[in-house]
């Protein structure tokens, strides 16, 4: 793992939405070449954390350091790949990847990068003609062509079927290695996290409950005993706490608060 200065550092990050505390005290360091997976139940604040890293939300308090300097507003080093892809339906595959490119030299790479994600023959297709997995490949190409220092993946495979997901895991792993990316993946799929990440961060009620380093060699095989053991460990951590919260909730009056 990397030894130099972290490229992104979160110090004591806290985020409230009105009365609701979403993130309470997050400290996290991201080094060059890291692949960090953030897992947790829905509503635990993991997507908010990613949005803070992208600069789409401002933290209520705490500091975000990028290359050692305090950062406010949109994080230009980061590109985010959204769960729903967010392709522009009125632009074909090629033009969707070309969005926001200012230099001619980058435009010349569009075909190459689409080939890398396996869509070299679909340059002129409309997004509505693509399958869910193909759309996400376009979204991935669009993020990668900017050569982001930090690739943020917000449950990018959540809506895909299991087979397509495994294909996408292989693709993401391959590109991460080839391009020496630094990536942060938010997911609710623990197997996905263990298959891809070198560090799994478990978030619970707005705090980091556990950080688990994953030292298995790539490509990772799901039938490896250590793989299964790690997955179970992480699942137990997440679910075990869920059981406790269910019990403590049952003592509360039967009023649902939003």
């Amino acid at each position, binding site marked *: 793992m990397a030894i130099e200065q972290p490229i992104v550092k979160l110090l004591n990050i806290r985020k409230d939405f009105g009365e609701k505390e979403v993130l309470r005290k997050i400290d996290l360091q991201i080094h060059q070449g890291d692949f960090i997976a953030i897992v947790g139940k829905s509503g635990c604040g993991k997507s908010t954390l990613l949005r803070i890293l992208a600069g*789409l939300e401002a933290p209520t308090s705490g500091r975000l350091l990028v290359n050692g300097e305090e950062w406010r507003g949109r994080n230009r080093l980061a590109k985010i790949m959204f769960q729903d892809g967010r392709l522009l339906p009125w632009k*074909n595959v090629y033009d969707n990847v070309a969005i926001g490119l200012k230099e001619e030299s980058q435009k010349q790479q569009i075909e190459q990068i689409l080939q890398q994600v396996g869509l070299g023959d679909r340059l002129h297709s409309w997004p509505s003609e693509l399958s869910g997995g193909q759309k996400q490949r376009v979204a991935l190409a669009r993020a990668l062509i900017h050569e982001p220092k930090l690739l943020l993946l917000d449950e990018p495979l959540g809506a895909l079927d299991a087979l397509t997901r495994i294909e996408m895991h292989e693709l993401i792993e391959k590109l991460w290695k080839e391009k020496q990316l630094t990536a942060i993946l938010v997911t609710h799929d623990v197997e996905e996290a263990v298959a891809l990440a070198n560090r799994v961060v478990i978030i619970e009620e707005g705090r980091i409950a556990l950080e688990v380093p994953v030292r298995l060699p790539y490509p990772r095989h799901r039938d490896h005993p250590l793989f299964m053991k790690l997955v179970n460990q992480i699942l137990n951590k997440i679910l075990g706490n869920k059981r406790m919260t269910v019990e403590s909730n049952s003592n509360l009056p039967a009023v649902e608060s939003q």
Partner: protein
Amino acid sequence: MKWKTKILPWVIPIGLLLTWQVSASIGILSTRVLPNPLDIVSAATNLTKSGQLPADVWTSTKRAFVGFLIGGGLGFLLGLVNGISKISEKLLDSSIQMIRNIPHLALLPIVILWFGIGEEAKLFLVALGTFFPIYLNTYHGIRSVDPSLIEMAYVYELKGFSLFWHVIFPAALPSILVGVRFALGITWVTLIVAETIAADSGIGYMAMNAREFMQLDVVVLSILLYALLGKLSDMIAKIAEKRLIKWHPSHQNE
């Protein structure tokens, strides 16, 4: 099977036309109620030869086009500005909504008092009638652009005009085009009323003039001309829609 589906929609119109012709020829249908189709065709050829028909059709088409351009253009611009700027929306939108409640054809008497029966009267009414559907649909189209796409554009550093051109305008376009088709319908209805009541040229004037001389075939011809022109402009709008939003799933596999 294919020729059947092609022919089927035409069976009833052609049948009606034939029944009309036959019942007029054998005298069941009095020519004082409806002239027979062949008479209408000959009226059309005569009027075309004399040059009156092309002149009147051209006058009406020009009025429709110019009035639509003025009203639609203003509606589009204001819809755009109010869709994008909160301040402008607060300043203008409620006033526009108030004026919208006045049926524009109800202004006909006052418009005649202002402009007489000159060109301005017709252009004013057409412009007023087409302004609102285009304004409303442009404004609504821009307001309902998916905020998640705007956020995506923010991540990819699109700003100002390029944000508008690549994201906001194409997203609003389907709604704007609905407004255009709606406005085209209103254009012709407005012209029919305005030309019938206050005009000295145009298709409506031709019809009223023919009524004076009991030329029933010319009256029916005028009505058919309006129908034809309305259909024609709707077809043009449909083709434009197909070309402009060919990315839309409803226009694929065609």
